[in-house]
């Protein structure tokens, strides 16, 4: 069971709700994925409107609603949005997204850290979206982030976990759950992240723009489970060398004749 801020999650697949062809398809895909953590861009919903399409579709399931601040350019905007979201929904969960560059949608490390510090003080459960910078991950944890969400590759690019080398370091050092978010384009990418030891993955574009989003959502659910099971089973070490103990320096063994 994955626990974030005291809440248990059976499913390690988190879903984003953007880019679907309709709220109805979105709802079906979420149901098929069995996701229990669902993010919604605050700029897409009208939390004050009880007839809002997205919120109505989502209200049919039992899940943790994770509003995200996508579109915010700096910490001040993100903080303001967060407070508005909480006032409307009553939930303190927040996916913090501060993405000043609308082309790459890469997260601003400085503004994200500043916003996290403030929002944690304000009592939010902050899940910051970040570039896969291990030092930043440590600082966000120190600031009280409930989890960290390093990107695999830029949002919507479907390129997979290009940042695997750094995500591995983040996972090794983390004291909070690590959710690989953004760029996961195929179920195999999700499995790869889970095999690495990620606690969960967040997928959006790969499902919403698939030919059959519902079937793709199911496939992702299976991949996340498979990856997690493999991780727990103890993966064998991948080795580029034929012999596992052949060090690159050319030494196969060391002379220990000096030992008395």
């Amino acid at each position, binding site marked *: 069971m994955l626990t974030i801020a005291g809440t248990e999650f059976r499913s390690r697949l988190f879903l984003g709700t953007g880019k679907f062809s309709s709220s109805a398809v979105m709802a079906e895909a979420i149901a098929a994925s069995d996701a229990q953590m669902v993010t919604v861009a605050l700029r897409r919903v009208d939390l004050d409107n009880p007839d809002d399409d997205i919120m109505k579709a989502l209200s049919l399931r039992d899940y943790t609603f994770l509003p995200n601040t996508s579109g915010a350019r700096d910490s001040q905007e993100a903080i303001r949005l967060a407070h508005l979201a909480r006032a409307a929904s009553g939930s303190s969960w927040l996916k913090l997204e501060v993405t000043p560059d609308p082309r790459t949608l890469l997260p601003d490390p400085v503004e994200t850290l500043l916003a996290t510090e403030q929002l944690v003080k304000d009592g939010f459960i902050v899940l910051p979206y970040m570039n896969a910078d291990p030092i930043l991950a440590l600082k966000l944890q120190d600031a009280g982030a409930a989890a960290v969400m390093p990107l695999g590759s830029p949002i919507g690019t479907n390129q997979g976990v290009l940042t695997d080398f750094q995500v591995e370091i983040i996972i090794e050092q983390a004291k909070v759950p690590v959710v690989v978010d953004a760029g996961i384009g195929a179920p195999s990418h999700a499995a790869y992240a889970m095999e690495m030891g990620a606690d969960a993955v967040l997928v959006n574009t790969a499902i919403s723009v698939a030919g059959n989003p519902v079937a793709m959502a199911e496939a992702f659910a299976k991949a996340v489970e498979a990856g997690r099971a493999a991780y727990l089973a103890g993966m064998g070490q991948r080795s580029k060398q034929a012999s596992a103990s052949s060090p690159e320096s050319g*030494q196969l063994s060391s002379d220990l004749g000096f030992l008395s």
Partner: protein
Amino acid sequence: MLSREISQAGPADVERALGRKRLQLHDLAALLSPAAEPFLQKMAARSADITLKRFGRTTQLYAPIYLSNYCTNRCAYCGFSADNLIKRKCLTLDEAEQEAGILHDRGFQHILLVSGEAESAVDVDYMEAIALRLRNKFAAVAIEIQPMSTEHYRRLFNAGITAVAVYQETYDRDLYKTVHLSGKKRDFDYRLETPARVAAAGMREVGIGALLGLADWRAEGLAIGHHLNWLRREFWSTAFTVSFPRMRPAAGEFEPLQIVSEANLSQLIFALRLFDPDVGLIVSTREEERYRDGMLGLGPTRYSAGSCTAPGGYGKSDHEGEQFSVGDHRSLDEVCAMIRAKGFDPVCKDWDREFQISN
């Protein structure tokens, strides 16, 4: 509990551990086990490879200065134990500065101030005063003294101390009780929590270790692995080192409870290097010349040299009142020559006092 995990390991577990890029604790257990002994040369090669990549062909040098051998603890194994009849001395600040001057002139830039536990002789005020005197003479001043509070460590950090070493001696709680007969050191938990206090105070480096010859060295090695893991998670910006004090003849003539051979010590060092590629591994002059020469480049990253383990010993020629007798008697110059002869660079300065100056 730790011992069971180790004894259950077999050759397959050792092979798996040797092939892994990132070792887990159960891999460390396998590498510490008897099943790993036939793999010692392979372990040495891996350890050498990792050490080379991470640290290069370098070895840091330092020397200890024993400030005082007064001690209020009775530890069965230690030459300074309160009930041992040895000549007791505590250096005055001037004498300590003199000793330090001798080491400075010999070429040392990193020193370790050591004392027994006796507040009347060495307390935080004394340490602060000596730190302030020495900080301008050396690149790094470390200490190995009685456990202190976070507040006191913070004062010492501000006074110029860079690193603190504090060894648990044994992670076996029951055995710990039987060898620590009286004094503040009897508090197992206070000592165990000390490295965390040191790191929390902002010290740049924390040294941990176990005294080899008390409990089963394999279990101690695994306990060190657990301790390192925990410390790194809590204090990600702190550097860590492990030392390997191995029982040598001492004034109290304590018979080691375990014989830890050089091969055992090497297995422990290699296993920890594979488990934690970044940890500093310190081999002091307790060990023989031949051993230290042979281990160069295979895992250790720091050596002491020209050591005297008695207060005021650098200014005199006798070794009265020493904590343990030294195995490698070579001077700094001789050890550096050996290091160079083996194609390594002896590093006498690897820090700077400017790191500690707070305005």
